[in-house]
């Protein structure tokens, strides 16, 4: 086991001595480049709203499948970039990644099943709700079956 940070002591190096002692820190450059990358990805996300007719993401037609696919991909890229670099999963022990992704996979799995159960991905799923299960705002009788 290699300890790679200063040994904890009751009498640390005085702040005024160490302040600014190490001017450059190589990992800072990685952080800044990561932030630039995230900013660029965000600009592309916003571009899907400003120019929805660009051929890159307009292939879904009225279903907006292209825009939705591109946005979900960019969202995933940003999510994992922040987790991997800024949250130090790249540098930390794999156990922490497992703990975090366990919660994430559980959440995505459970809630995808909920969305399927409520037929969100069926045409008109938003308006009518699941068959026989009224949305709370649909009134005491719920929407007509079928």
């Amino acid at each position, binding site marked *: 086991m290699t300890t790679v940070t200063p040994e904890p002591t009751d009498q*640390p190096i005085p702040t005024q001595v160490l302040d600014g002692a190490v001017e450059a820190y190589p990992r800072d450059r990685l952080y800044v480049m990561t932030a630039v990358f995230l900013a660029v990805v965000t600009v592309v996300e916003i571009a899907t709203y400003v120019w*929805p007719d660009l051929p890159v993401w307009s292939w879904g037609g009225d279903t907006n499948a292209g825009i939705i696919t591109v946005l979900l991909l960019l969202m995933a890229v940003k999510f994992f970039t922040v987790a991997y670099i800024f949250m130090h999963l790249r540098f930390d022990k794999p156990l922490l990644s497992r703990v*975090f992704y366990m919660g994430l996979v*559980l959440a995505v799995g459970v809630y995808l099943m909920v969305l399927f159960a409520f037929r969100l991905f069926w045409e008109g799923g938003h308006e009518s709700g699941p068959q026989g299960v009224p949305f709370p705002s649909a009134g005491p009788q719920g929407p007509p079956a079928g």
Partner: protein
Amino acid sequence: MAEAIAHHRELMAERDAHAEHAHIEHDTNTGISNTKLAMWLFLGSECLLFGGLITTYLLYKNPLEGPTPEEIFDIPFTSTSSFVLLMSSLTMVLAVSAIERGDHHRLRVWLTATALLGGTFIAGQVYEFTVFYNEGLGFTTSRFSSAFYTLTGFHGVHVTVGIIMLVSLILLSLRGHLPEHRSETVEIVGLYWHFVDVVWILIFAVVYLIP
């Protein structure tokens, strides 16, 4: 003292040379500090909380009455807010980096910048909520409004808690109670802050941008 600084530099250089595997070893079964492990477990559970809120929003996003999302959302304004929160993640990670190398002055500068950026985001959210309310979108106006305010409101509360933690760190640092061997305290607050940013990445795409 010069020897101590030189030793510190050597340790930092060694850690960067082994960056792929760099971590602090702790005297626990996992080799990870219990506090850090607890924070990651907490964040894993937070995935379930926000997953539930986002799912509820997706189910109720088409209002049966009242204004629709398309009518009321101001995408350029929210994009600016999102960018502000994204950049606060950079200042946060630079604060962690600063304390790891014992640069307390920059630690305070970056922590203050992060808190200010977070405060700007919250101010933007308060402004957005006020505009929506004046345009007729109250909390109980429709199923969409209830789901929207609950989701974004919960996120706003998380950001506010994060700002309180950041201010606490700044005060601790000013009083000299945050030496570099306690850098993990800043790192753990940073984990929370980055998670709040990550959740907004999801909310921004799912709630505001996806048609």
